[in-house]
């Protein structure tokens, strides 16, 4: 059978083109790779190469023909041994012989039936119809801490170190790399003692090369290792952003589930103290935006330990946002052999009936102090520590809202497109009828972080602002 040459689409958007020139004439032999024609698209003149071999039997669209629709047969090629008589039966009717599949994609319903084109091998499979719904999230229960368990007061720094050490003892595939994590014992001393216990093979100092070592970590994870990558601070992780988003977060999806990237990126996030604009900012909202990432931001030593252990075991890439100021804060941690907390579960830290305050990480320090102040005026605030930002436990917030009717969010990050904005929008969508007042957001001010002490203080959220917002939604 003679083979049709179809008008090709030469760009993702091309629908028709002009047949500028035939470089072969009827009767010419044609082999793979031969340029047979030139076609003008809206962007350029393109060459068309033959794929099939034989003799150019018939030109169906002469040169100079304009607006030839994509997939219209423009010529016929005779195979070896075929003569012109084979053409008679095979020459198709004019017009595109087939709807390109991409034109089907936007359509709500399958395209109208077309008459079967003459001899068409390529019939795109019909697109499955129906809708897709995101799967409902199932929350793992918070593990019970057995009665009589001893609690040890330690700093968040120590809790994080213990979490890593325990996981490294448990799994030889876990290792840590980053700047100053080994010999220097960590820029913020979070990795103290790890080099001594696990050696230089598993506790690896990198050059100052965030983009590169983030990619190296992800590459090692592609092969099944479980790296912990420490960023000295998340400010420097912007150098590595492409690897975090394009390589870590998307690979499972892009590989159809075949390849996983089990990796933790951790380090201090959020405003520190007097280090000015480039070293003082909160990336909570940035990472929470990305499908494929999990984002954790604990506020207590116990949560830091239980969630970091969970993050290291998690088969997905996890962004673990610590806080430099919280590193030195002490709180009780249950003395258990294996304290692992579920990712994606918020915790009600303080009960109240009048207003819900939602915070995480450093924001919790403002929230809890504000709740104390509000209590003096007989406003009982319920305080929720989100702990995980993605996936977000909106269920726990909604349950609290049903009781209080009012919500205030607290974050050090900027207001626009922030995590508080996400919470407010989710509550409107999921629990609008329970809202007795608009959701209020207490955020960092919309400016780069200033250096001067007084300005820095003004740029950050304050306890007073949280109190004021809580009063406002309570109309008191």
């Amino acid at each position, binding site marked *: 059978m003679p083979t049709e040459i179809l008008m090709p689409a030469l760009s993702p958007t091309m629908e028709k083109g002009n047949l500028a020139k035939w470089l072969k004439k009827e009767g010419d032999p044609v082999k793979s790779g031969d340029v047979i024609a030139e076609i003008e698209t809206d962007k350029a003149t393109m060459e068309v190469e033959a794929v099939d071999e034989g003799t150019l039997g018939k030109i169906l669209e002469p040169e100079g023909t304009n607006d030839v629709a994509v997939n219209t047969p423009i010529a016929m090629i005779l195979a070896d041994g075929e003569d012109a008589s084979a053409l008679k039966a095979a020459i198709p009717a004019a017009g595109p012989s087939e709807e390109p599949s991409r034109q089907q994609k936007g359509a709500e319903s399958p395209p109208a039936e077309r008459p079967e084109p003459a001899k068409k091998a390529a019939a*795109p499979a019909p*697109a499955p119809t129906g809708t897709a719904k995101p799967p409902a999230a199932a929350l793992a229960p918070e593990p019970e801490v057995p009665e009589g368990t001893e609690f040890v007061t330690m700093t968040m720094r120590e809790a994080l170190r213990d979490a890593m050490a325990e996981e490294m003892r448990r799994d030889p595939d876990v290792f840590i790399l980053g700047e100053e994590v080994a010999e220097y014992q960590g820029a913020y001393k979070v990795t103290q003692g790890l080099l001594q216990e696990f050696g230089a093979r598993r506790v690896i100092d990198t*050059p100052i090369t965030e983009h*590169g070592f983030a990619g190296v970590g992800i590459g090692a994870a592609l092969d099944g290792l479980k790296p912990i990558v420490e960023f000295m601070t998340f400010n420097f992780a912007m150098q590595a952003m492409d690897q975090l988003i394009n390589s870590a977060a998307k690979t499972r999806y892009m590989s159809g589930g075949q390849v996983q990237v089990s990796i933790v990126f951790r380090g201090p996030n959020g405003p520190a103290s007097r280090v000015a604009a480039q070293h003082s900012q909160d990336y909570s909202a940035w990472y929470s935006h990305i499908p494929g990432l999990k984002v954790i931001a604990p506020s207590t030593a116990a949560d830091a330990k239980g969630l970091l252990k969970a993050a290291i075991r998690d088969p997905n890439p996890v962004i673990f946002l610590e806080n430099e100021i919280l590193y030195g804060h002490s709180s009780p941690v249950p003395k258990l052999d294996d304290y692992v907390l579920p990712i994606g579960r918020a915790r009600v830290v303080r009960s109240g009936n009048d207003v819900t305050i939602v915070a995480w990480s450093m924001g919790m320090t403002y929230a809890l102090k504000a709740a104390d102040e509000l209590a003096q005026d007989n406003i009982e605030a319920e305080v929720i520590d989100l702990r995980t930002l993605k996936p977000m436990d909106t269920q726990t917030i909604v349950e609290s809202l049903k009781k209080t009717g009012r919500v205030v969010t607290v974050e050090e990050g900027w207001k626009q497109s922030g995590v508080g904005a996400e919470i407010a929008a989710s509550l409107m969508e999921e629990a609008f009828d329970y809202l007795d007042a608009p959701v209020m957001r207490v955020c960092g001010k919309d400016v780069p972080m200033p250096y001067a002490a007084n300005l820095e203080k003004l740029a950050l959220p304050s306890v007073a602002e949280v109190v004021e917002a809580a009063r406002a939604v309570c109309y008191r």
Partner: protein
Amino acid sequence: MAVAQTKQAAQTTEVLSPLTGNGAGRPTDTAKIAEFTKEQELDALQHMLLIRRFEEKAGQMYGMGLIGGFCHLYIGQEAVVVGMKLAMRDGDQMITGYRDHGHMLACGMDPKGVMAELTGRRGGYSKGKGGSMHMFSLEKKFYGGHGIVGAQVPLGTGLAFANKYRGSDTVCLTFLGDGAANQGQVYESFNMAELWKLPIVYVIENNRYAMGTSVTRSSAQTDFSKRGSSFNIPGSQVDGMDVRAVKAASEDAIAWCRSGKGPVILEMMTYRYRGHSMSDPAKYRTKEEVDKMRTEHDPIEQVRKRLLEKKWANEDELKKIDASVRAIVNEASEFATHDPEPEPSELYTDVYR
């Protein structure tokens, strides 16, 4: 501008001339040509033809609207990946950028699965969710398929890191183009790879154009084999159009890595016949330049010619090989055309586990 243009033309001619250049202490000898047996020549021919015919078919299917988005063809560069594969050992890894169909076929991935991914169907390697630039096969040790120029280089370095961490002697072959060679993360990777003596061959496929920008217009140092010199990484230029030269250089480079001496750079002097992607008319180079490469240096013609000269095969036998390759490609295109699109429920799967 006129001066720059002249310089460009002059250097392009130079780049297209036969390859020389090798420094003392480098682990590879550029001039070396692996002597192929009849079986090896036929094997190389078959593998290169499969890539050539597959890519031609992909181009055709793109033209029919069956393949969408970006589609970067490997036509002209076949000897690079086939020669390297011949030098690899089972278990060695491969990772590359977006011009990746040839690498997947060379790794032994099923042409049907690759083509069905190009058409976005459920039988594709990534269930239709990855497309031309994003495919993987852990079974065949192919780690993608990466769409961001240069991003695969730290990833490949990480694979090599994992090999060393596990104490295995597996080597990772990390492919990048002359365009990617100007990305910063490449040099961050070079530094760590040499610092930690990682078993990795950086294969710079110099096809002379980063999209539409020739190497002479984009690169201060156009000898990419020297790009590792400030990190003490040895490198060589290799005639990437001659599958025997590729194999010889690759064997040396892989042996160097496997013995624990650290990374190596191989600059493969090659050429792509088609545009950067399907919508590129390639007006930045002359037709004569393309024709010269096709007629004088085509990697497949070189093998065919040798087979005929040595009377290891006649025209009829070569035609039969071509026919059998076409049959494989046609089967792949049939499958990729009729395989259904993914179920709508697949939209939400494989984001997390």
